[in-house]
């Protein structure tokens, strides 16, 4: 087979002026730039490795706090009313723990005795302490 079967065998391409002369210089500049980039990356690496666990822990606490405060709102429809009711109930319960049963009765009596009952009230007349306690007792 003839080697010049398809015309001249010279390369049909050329390169920009001084391309091969400048090639080494350009490549070394590229290598230097890459090495500099690597060095910068390496110098930041120890700082990042120290901060990283703390950042992770802070993020975890933040997530826990968010879940703690937001979850009841997300999963409870009448949330605000429920929270208010719960708060009232808790307040009454906590009072009951510190106040004596007799004191509560006295409190009730004192409150009721300050009332002026109208003439058509069912309980007209004077009441003993026991009677008053009995009529003001609600289950």
């Amino acid at each position: 087979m003839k080697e010049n079967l398809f015309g001249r065998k010279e390369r049909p391409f050329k390169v920009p002026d001084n391309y091969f002369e400048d090639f080494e210089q350009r490549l070394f500049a590229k290598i230097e730039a890459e090495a500099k980039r690597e060095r910068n990356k390496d110098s930041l690496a120890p700082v990042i490795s120290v901060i990283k666990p703390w950042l992770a822990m802070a993020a975890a606490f933040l997530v826990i706090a968010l879940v703690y405060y937001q979850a009841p709102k997300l999963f409870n429809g009448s949330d605000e009313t429920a929270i208010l009711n719960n708060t009232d109930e808790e307040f009454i319960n906590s009072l009951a723990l510190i106040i004596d049963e007799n004191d509560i009765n006295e409190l009730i009596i004192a409150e009721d005795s300050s009332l002026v009952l109208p003439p058509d009230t069912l309980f007209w007349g004077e009441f003993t302490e026991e009677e008053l306690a009995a009529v003001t007792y609600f289950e």
Partner: protein
Amino acid sequence: MQPDDKEILHLAQEAGKPDQALALLMKKYKERLYWHIRKMVIVHEDADDLLQNTFMKAWKSIGKFRGDASLYTWLYRIATNETLNYINKKKEGLLNEDSDMEIMLGNKIETDPLFSGDEIQKRLQKCLLALPEKQRLVFNMKYFEDMTYEQISEILGTSVGALKASYFHAVRKIEAFIKNEVF
């Protein structure tokens, strides 16, 4: 005078002077490798990038080069792999991978101020673009670079028989293209 491969390897591996080794490596092989790449990718800027990548890879791993093959073969392998990977990646972004690539590079040949060939050479280059990559590669290495089948076999890791068949098919296809004036 061209630097000796043994001297280059000595500088890179024993003398601890990889930069000097790279400088000699480039001095000896840059032009041959550039033309090897350029004939495949056609565009000068692409060939320049790929040549730089080839030497960067060689520079990074020359310290571990065991010398099972010659430096020449090793560099040609790196350059060829870089080039074929680049072509495949470029094709992936095209709708009709082969024909769109052929049209794109054909247009580049028509308009590129760095194409210096005559009309016959232009026609030949356009015919070559219609060949499968491996056939084009073998044709370039055999026809333009005057490599022996044994050398090509060592670089591409393909048997001599398969290379001969590949070159034969490439020549037949180009002849048919020219005869039928397909382009």
